C-alpha cells in the first residue's frame, strides 16, 4: 500500500464522513475517537494538569491521536481552561482541584439561575437577562453586572443614563474581571485552533465545527435547572413554550458557526431527552419540535447536525426519523443498533455503540466480536459510524485499538 500524504488522508477522511452523513456508501465505516478523560489517561497526564497547561493538553491529544488514529478528532477542547474558570469562580461547575480529584472529569452542578418569575424577563430580552442576572449568578467576580444598564433603552436620550450606568464602579470592576478572564480564554482558544491546524497538517479533521445544545436543554441546564424545568412542563407550560422559542433562535445561532467548515458537523449535546426524563407526550410537545426546527435551520445552511444522545433513545427513534434524508447523524449511545438501523436506515446515519464497560473490562477479541456484529447490522450499506457508546473516561488501550483497527479492516465496503 502506498503511503498517503497528510493532505490526501485529510481529504479522504472528510469525504468518508460527508458520505456517511449523506447516506452514500463510504469507502469504509468511519470511526470516531471516543474522547473525554481517556486521551489524558492514555498520555499519563492528569486532567488537572491538562486544564491548567494548554500545551500539555495539546501534547496529550497528539499522543492519543498518533497512536489510535481514529478518523476524526475532538482535540483538547474538553480540557476546559482551569485558570479562566478560577478567575470566574463558576458556581455551577466542579472540576479537578475545585471539588473534584485531580483526574476526574469536571461536572455540572444542577442549579436554578432563572427563577419561575423571571421567564418574562428572559423572553422579552434574553441578552439583558443573561448579562444582568445569569452572569452575576454564575460568576461571582462579575457581580457588578447586575447593575448593567438595559441596552435597549440607549436610543434617543437613553444613552445619557445608559452610558453613565456603564461607568459605575460596580460595572467597571465587573468588566475588568471579565476582561481578565476573556484574555485567558483567548489563550485557550488560540491553543485549540493551533491544535486543529496541527492535526490538519497531519491529515486528521476535527469532529466538531460547532457545539450546540437542544433548546429544551438550553433552558433546562443552566437557566431553570433540571428539576425545575421538568416541573415547568406541568406548572407553566405556556411560559416554557415561549422561552423555548427564544432558545431555538439561540440554538440556531450557536450551531451556525459550523457553516462553511470542511466538515460542517455541529455536535449537539442532548441532555434531557430520554424516557428517564420525560414521557413521549412531553418529548413530542416540549423537546423535539424545537430541536427539529433548529436542526432544519442548520441544515438549510449546509450544516450536518450530529446529535449526541448519551443514553438509550429507542423510544425516540420514530421522532428522530422525521428529518430530511441524509442530513443528520444520531449518536445513539446504548440504543439497540438493529432497532435504530431499522427505524433510521435510509433516513439518518447512526453512530455508536460499543459498550464502555466492554472497552474497560473486555478483551480485544470481545471488542472485535462486538464491532463485527455492529458493522454487519448497523453498518449494512453505509449510514454507520463506529464509536464507543458514550465518551470515554477509562478503557484498556488494547481494546480501544482493537475497536479502531478492526473497523478499518473489516469495515471496508466492497
Amino acid at each position, binding site marked *: 500500500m502506498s503511503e498517503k500524504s497528510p493532505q490526501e488522508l485529510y481529504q479522504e477522511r472528510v469525504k468518508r464522513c460527508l458520505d456517511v452523513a449523506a447516506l452514500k456508501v463510504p469507502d469504509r465505516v468511519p470511526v470516531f475517537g471516543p474522547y473525554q478523560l481517556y486521551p489524558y489517561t492514555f498520555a499519563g497526564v492528569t486532567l488537572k494538569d491538562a486544564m491548567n497547561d494548554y500545551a500539555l493538553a495539546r501534547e496529550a491529544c497528539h499522543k492519543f491521536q498518533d497512536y489510535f488514529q481514529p478518523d476524526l478528532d475532538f482535540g483538547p477542547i474538553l480540557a476546559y481552561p482551569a485558570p479562566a474558570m478560577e478567575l470566574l469562580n463558576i458556581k455551577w461547575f466542579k472540576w479537578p482541584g475545585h471539588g473534584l480529584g485531580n483526574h476526574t472529569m469536571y461536572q455540572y452542578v444542577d442549579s436554578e439561575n432563572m427563577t419561575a418569575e423571571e421567564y418574562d424577563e428572559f423572553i422579552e430580552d434574553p441578552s439583558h437577562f443573561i448579562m444582568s442576572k445569569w452572569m452575576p449568578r454564575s460568576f461571582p467576580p462579575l457581580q457588578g453586572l447586575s447593575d448593567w444598564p438595559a441596552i435597549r433603552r440607549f436610543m434617543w436620550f437613553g444613552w445619557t443614563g445608559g452610558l453613565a450606568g456603564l461607568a459605575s464602579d460596580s460595572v467597571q470592576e465587573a468588566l475588568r474581571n471579565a476582561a481578565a478572564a476573556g484574555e485567558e480564554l483567548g489563550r485557550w482558544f488560540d491553543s485549540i485552533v493551533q491544535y486543529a491546524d496541527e492535526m490538519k497538517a497531519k491529515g486528521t479533521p476535527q469532529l466538531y465545527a460547532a457545539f450546540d445544545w437542544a433548546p429544551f436543554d438550553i433552558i433546562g441546564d443552566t437557566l431553570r435547572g433540571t428539576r425545575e424545568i421538568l416541573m415547568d412542563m*406541568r406548572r407553566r407550560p405556556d411560559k416554557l413554550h415561549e422561552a423555548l422559542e427564544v432558545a431555538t433562535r439561540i440554538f440556531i445561532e450557536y450551531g451556525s458557526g459550523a457553516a462553511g467548515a470542511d466538515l460542517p458537523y455541529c455536535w449537539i449535546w442532548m441532555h434531557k431527552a430520554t424516557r428517564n426524563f420525560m*414521557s413521549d407526550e412531553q418529548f413530542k410537545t416540549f423537546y423535539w419540535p424545537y430541536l427539529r426546527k433548529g436542526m432544519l435551520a442548520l441544515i438549510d445552511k449546509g450544516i450536518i447536525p450530529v446529535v449526541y444522545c448519551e443514553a438509550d433513545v429507542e423510544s425516540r427513534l420514530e421522532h428522530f426519523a422525521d428529518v430530511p434524508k441524509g442530513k443528520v447523524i444520531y449518536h445513539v449511545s446504548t440504543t439497540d443498533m438493529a432497532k435504530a438501523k431499522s427505524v433510521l436506515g435510509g433516513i439518518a446515519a447512526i453512530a455508536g455503540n460499543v*459498550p*464502555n*464497560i466492554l472497552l474497560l473490562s473486555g478483551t480485544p477479541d470481545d471488542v472485535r466480536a462486538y464491532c463485527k456484529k455492529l458493522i454487519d447490522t448497523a453498518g449494512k450499506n453505509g449510514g454507520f459510524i463506529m464509536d464507543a457508546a*458514550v465518551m470515554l473516561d477509562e478503557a484498556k488501550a488494547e481494546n480501544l485499538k482493537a475497536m479502531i483497527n478492526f473497523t478499518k479492516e473489516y469495515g471496508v465496503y466492497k
Partner: protein
Amino acid sequence: MKEKLVNAIADMNEKEAMHLAQTMLENGEDPQAILDAGSEAMARIGDRYDAGEYFLPELILAGDMMRQLGDLVKPKLRAGAAQRKPFGTVVIGTVAGDIHDIGKDVVAFMLDVNNFKVHNIGVDVSEATFVDKIRELKPNVVGLSGFLTLAFEQMKKTVEAIKKAGMRDQVKIMIGGSIMNEEAAEYAGADAYGADATTAVKFAKSWTGGK
C-alpha cells in the same frame, strides 16, 4: 374531602391539592389525615410510574407537593403518629468522583414510597463513607449510583471496601446509572443492576421479603 385530596395530588393538580389541604386544616381536620392522603396519592403515583403513565417530571412534582404538604401540617402535627413497619433499610448514594444525583434521587424516592427506610447519603460518596454508613445504619440493601464511566472502577472499589470491612454478606448491593448494565454489575461485584427505579424497588423487595 380526603379522597378529593388524594385525587388532586395523584392527578398532578397542584394548586387544587394545596387549596384542599389548606381548607382541611382550617376546618379543623386531623393533620395526620392530610399526610395519609399524601401517602395514598404517592402509592398511586408509584403505580402510574410503573405502568409507564408517569415519568420523572411527575415524580419530582409529587415530591415537591409532599414537601409543601409537610411544611403545611408539620407545625400542627402531634408526635407519635403510628407508622407502618418498613420492609427494610436502604443506603443509597452516588459513588466518589461523580456528582450526578437525579436518577439516584428518583430511586430513593420510589423506595421511600414503597415502604423502605431510605438513607440517601448524597453524591461523590467515598468507599470509606459507604462502609461507615453501612456499619452505622445496618441496611439490608445498598444502592450505588453513577452516571460517568469512571463509576465502573469506583463501584468496584466500593464493593471491595465493603468486602474488606467484612460486611459484604450483610448487604445486597445494586447498581444503577444510564450506562450501567449487567456486565458493569458483575465487574463491580454487585448483586444486581437495575435499569430504572421500578426494578430497584423490585430487587429491594425480593431481598427483604417485602410485598
